[in-house]
């Protein structure tokens, strides 16, 4: 088995060109899936018998919440790769993940609050999932804060990578302790949205939105990665050739 493909992924010019080539292949399917999912979810799907039209926010909320965790895991993996094999591109990838992930987390929190107002009668409930989502936002902010705080780029990369790995180990612990904490204080009154009994006309758009959000993240990540690589390699000669200046 040859590892050349892996070694090539460590080369900034190669990754820069590859990211440019791949971006449209992710961005267009993402756009189509999201348009289709939104059309299916907001127009075609029937209103919920309990929540009426209010449930439709799930088509943004659930994919955002899903992405918030997936992006953190991706960030942790990229950080670990960068830390172990000292690959600069992996650090650039991890650094590009954080703002995207924090935005998804914020979106999940805001849509959750907007959904909570008509359903629970309050914008904020100390529901275990909302709470651990909020903690996740703090983890993202801490990561970005640490990066911003260290001036030397290489040290910022390695220190923040270590933090991301520590965070990935801790996310499940935090999640389960928050769930446990909450079950002591209130009965599980939170409505369980749909898993067993969601009809296909509601579920299909949700799955489309999930796939669309995942691809959207991929596209955003590649764009950010190119910007990050450009910034890091701004003194390199291949950049001048690439940009034709």
């Amino acid at each position, binding site marked *: 088995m040859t590892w050349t493909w892996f070694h090539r992924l460590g080369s900034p010019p190669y990754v820069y060109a590859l990211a440019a080539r791949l971006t449209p292949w992710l961005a267009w399917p993402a756009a189509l899936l999201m348009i289709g999912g939104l059309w299916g979810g907001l127009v075609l799907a029937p209103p919920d018998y309990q929540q009426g039209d209010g449930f439709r926010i799930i088509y943004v909320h659930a994919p955002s919440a899903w992405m918030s965790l997936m992006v953190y895991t991706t960030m942790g993996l990229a950080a670990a790769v960068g830390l172990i094999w000292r690959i600069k591109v992996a650090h650039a990838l991890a650094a590009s993940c954080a703002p995207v992930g924090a935005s998804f987390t914020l979106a999940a929190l805001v849509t959750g609050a907007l959904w909570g107002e008509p359903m629970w009668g309050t914008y904020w409930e100390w529901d275990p999932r909302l709470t651990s989502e909020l*903690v996740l936002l703090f983890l993202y902010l801490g990561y970005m804060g*640490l990066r911003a*705080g260290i001036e030397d780029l290489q040290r910022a990369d390695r220190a923040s990578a*270590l933090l991301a790995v*520590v965070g990935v180990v801790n996310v499940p612990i935090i999640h389960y302790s*928050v769930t446990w904490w909450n079950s002591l204080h209130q009965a599980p009154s939170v409505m369980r949205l749909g898993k067993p009994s969601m009809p296909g006309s509601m579920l299909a758009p949700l799955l489309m939105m999930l796939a669309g959000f995942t691809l959207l993240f991929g596209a955003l990540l590649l764009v950010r990665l190119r910007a990050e690589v450009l910034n890091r390699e701004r003194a390199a000669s291949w950049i001048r050739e690439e940009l034709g200046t």
Partner: protein
Amino acid sequence: MSLDAARLALTRDLHLAFRKRGQLVQPLAFFAIVTVLFPLSSSPELAQLRRVAPGALWVGALLASLLALEFLFRDDAYDGTLEQYALSGRSLTGLVFAKTAAHWLLTGLPLSLMAPLAALSLGAPPRSVPGILAAVGVGSVALSLIGSVGAALTLGIKRSGALLSLLTLPLSLPVLIFGARATELAIHGASLLAPLELLAALAVLALTLAPLAAAAAVRISLE
């Protein structure tokens, strides 16, 4: 060999700390002041205080241990001791662990001894003292270890206090949750074995992983 080095590092840190007794008392005074804030800001009724006591106690302990964390590595990083540790050929993990152990002996242990007093002043019954002592004692071990990672990561940063809290507090939440729960059960006279065991599990997990992560972070900060 590494064990000897770690023991020397531990005694050195304890000696240094006892030369500066003023600094030693600061986290304790801070903890006492935070405890005073709660009756003053809510109500002096003991029945009501008893309900907020677990939360007040743990928020106070968490903040006090956080306050002391800034000094865990800082002086040794400034005067080059940490660099010598890293170059000494001894296990840096062991040395960092020794420093963390000294930190716990100097802040965590006194805090856990003081916590029952604070709890009594907040209306906890005397029979809850052993439970609270155990809960804060075990929990503060985990807090010191988790904090050592954060302190090592923020070593090279000026005015790192707020950032250190932002890094450390989310990771400390499980300790806070189980600690406060154990304290609550102790105050009500119920068995606090379940949360205490979870606290101990967190402490053991931190004991195994945190020194490795903190040593790696110290190396990164020294690069």
